[in-house]
């Protein structure tokens, strides 16, 4: 590794060179400070809640010899950056991820620290997390991540004003859903906003439809490697339901041109041009930032409707159980101890308060008495109940599967929604993908 200047390398030669370099730098700026070789790199996904991690790092640095340096990676390419850096000398020491498929390849290459014992032995972490939330960090019998942000269930949002206008309630059953689609279309309102240009928004519909039709077990079989489970009749039937929605005009005629990532769909929804929007709980924060009046006065929320004669539970949810900190297995000695010490702070009072104040529901147990500090306590309680009472919490499929399988699946989803595949062809294409 001739070009390596990364602080993690501990060979005497590089340490010496680094020390020499550092001595020069320090002399030049005339200030003391921790040795550069003692600094760990912490990567996080840059967005509106990054400041919480920045504050946590700052608090940690005040009391530790080993210093942390937070690196904020722009969101859109986080997954690629993380993946291409791992296994090179530029890899982060502690890093944000989505658990499951986003880190399973690293686990197979023994690149991450197994945190099972740490969780069992550390008072601050033992039994601290909601089991369904921690589950996404459990791979091959080990635990490889600690929840560090909010739980993000996918919620069926609606525009309360438009529902009042037609004198209806948000749908609780699929029959009501179908009826509402007709009524809203007659009123020249798009029944459901969908950013189909981003295939993961279309995926949310399939995730819920499969859960309600076939129960959470079908996906659990696929996720655990039984790729033949794509052939389950519930897969074809839920894909067909999605096609029927498109056919019936539920998503309007331009949904394939709409994107979520440029705020297009959220703006469309906030302007009252669509009645419902199936999206992660972060939609609330986004609306609060971009269309505050809409968020406060007209943004309603509810659970996904039940499909009669379906096998799913009404309380089951899909979404992102959390984001996680994982630790690079190259760390050892004092640095490893420091990294594990840092993980403890994800459950301390300051960190949890900051999360709640930011509008997040932490993945820890017993946060109900904190929820009054949430910007919207009512929405917080709704989510908290949703999470704690869920019969099953299915992780977003694209994050549950390893990269390669997820890419194949997303292409099939995109093809299904853009008319390139029938429901049967969709299931056939995916058979063998897991």
């Amino acid at each position: 590794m001739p070009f390596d200047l990364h602080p993690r390398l501990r060979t005497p030669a590089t340490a010496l060179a680094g020390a020499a370099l550092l001595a020069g730098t320090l002399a030049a700026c005339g200030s003391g400070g921790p040795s550069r070789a003692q600094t760990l790199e912490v990567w996080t996904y840059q967005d509106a809640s990054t400041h919480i991690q920045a504050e946590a790092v700052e608090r940690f640095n005040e009391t530790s010899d080993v210093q942390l340096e937070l690196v904020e990676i722009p969101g859109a390419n986080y997954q690629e950056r993380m993946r291409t850096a791992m296994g090179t000398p530029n890899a982060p020491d502690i890093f944000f991820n989505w658990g499951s498929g986003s880190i399973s390849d690293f686990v197979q290459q023994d690149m991450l620290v197994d945190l099972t014992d740490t969780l069992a032995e550390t008072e601050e972490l033992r039994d601290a997390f909601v089991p369904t939330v921690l589950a996404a960090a459990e791979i091959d019998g080990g635990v490889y991540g600690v929840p560090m942000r909010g739980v993000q269930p996918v919620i069926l949002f609606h525009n309360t004003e438009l529902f009042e206008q037609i004198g209806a309630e948000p749908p609780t059953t699929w029959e009501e859903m179908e009826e509402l689609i007709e009524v809203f279309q007659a009123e020249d309102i798009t029944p459901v906003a969908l950013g189909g240009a981003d295939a993961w928004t279309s995926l949310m519909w399939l995730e819920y439809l499969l859960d309600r039709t076939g129960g959470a077990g079908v996906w659990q079989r696929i996720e655990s490697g039984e790729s033949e489970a794509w052939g389950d009749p519930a897969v074809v039937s839920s894909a067909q339901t999605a096609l029927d929605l498109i056919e019936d005009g539920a998503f309007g005629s331009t949904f394939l041109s709409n994107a979520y990532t440029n705020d297009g769909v959220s703006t469309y929804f906030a302007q009252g041009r669509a009645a419902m929007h199936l999206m992660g709980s972060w939609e609330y924060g986004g609306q609060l930032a971009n269309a505050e009046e809409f968020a406060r006065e007209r943004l309603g929320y509810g659970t996904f409707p039940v499909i009669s004669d379906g096998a799913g539970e009404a309380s089951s949810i899909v979404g992102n159980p959390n984001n996680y900190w994982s630790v690079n297995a190259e760390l050892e000695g004092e640095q490893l101890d420091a990294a594990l010490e840092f993980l403890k702070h994800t459950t301390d009072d300051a960190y949890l308060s900051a999360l709640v104040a930011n509008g997040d529901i932490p993945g820890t147990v017993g946060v109900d008495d904190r929820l009054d500090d949430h910007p919207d306590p009512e929405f917080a309680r709704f989510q908290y109940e949703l999470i704690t009472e869920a019969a099953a919490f299915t992780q977003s499929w694209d994050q549950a599967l390893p990269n390669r399988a997820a890419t194949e699946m997303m292409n099939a989803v995109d093809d299904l929604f853009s008319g390139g595949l029938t429901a049967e062809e969709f299931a056939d294409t995916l058979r063998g993908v897991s």
Partner: protein
Amino acid sequence: MAGRRRARDTGRPGVLWAVPGLLFFGLFAAAPMVLVAWLSFTSWDGLSAPAWSGTENWTRLWSDPAMHRALRLSLLLTLLSWLFQTPVALLLGVWSAGRQRSRAVLSAVFFLPLLASSVALALVWRSILDPNFGLAADVARWLELGDANVLGSQRGALLAVAFVAAWQFVPFHALLYQGGARQVPRSLYDAASIDGAGTVRQFFAVTLPQLRNTVVTSSVLMVVGSLTYFETVLILTGGGPGSATTIVPYLMYETGFRAFDLGYASAVATSLVVVATGVSLLMVRLTGFGRMRSTREGM
């Protein structure tokens, strides 16, 4: 030795002068290409060491429907780009070769897109083509065309990519043609006008034949550029809807940096190098570009 003698004969600088260029090309083009060619015979996830897999990637490439589709789309996009960009760039370039001040001012305006980054242009066009908030929505309403579902329809998305590419690259090719047209000797036009040729006749009898070399140069650049076109697709359509704009370079990116199937992605990349090189060599050969020394021999 032979090289040096020839260099002396023609009065050109020796091989030594080419060293910086060769080193740069070797380090940043040839070496990575060799590496990618080698990777195409391995199975590699980017984490563990590449494992030799023989011709597995290549046999898969040969029968992969996604690759066939991507290749078809790439060739279609190349054809569309050439058919659209060449006449526009040619006319614009020849027109702007005139020395009038008004033409100079307008040319400066036409050449502006050349200065912007492709990513910025793609983002701007994506906003323009937004079905609800973009200019396209207003135009569609005004023309009573219904919904502006350009990026959401299979054909519309590919045409949009071809159009944005043209919008971005026509100025460059017009610049080539402008330079070429200004090299055409005045005397040829004088002779033509004595023979009674009008503007149109002069264009076809004098300008176009004189621009033969420029047409070939511009076409080769256009074809190779279209075959390796990427950023605009990534930002404008993300290869969609479905796989309607998943051209070969995008397929390579998706396979390499989404699925992290880097061995197979290398096979896609290598085949792209081979196809692009082959097509440009073929064009040079067929047009007789290689044998031509000058369009003004004997003048």
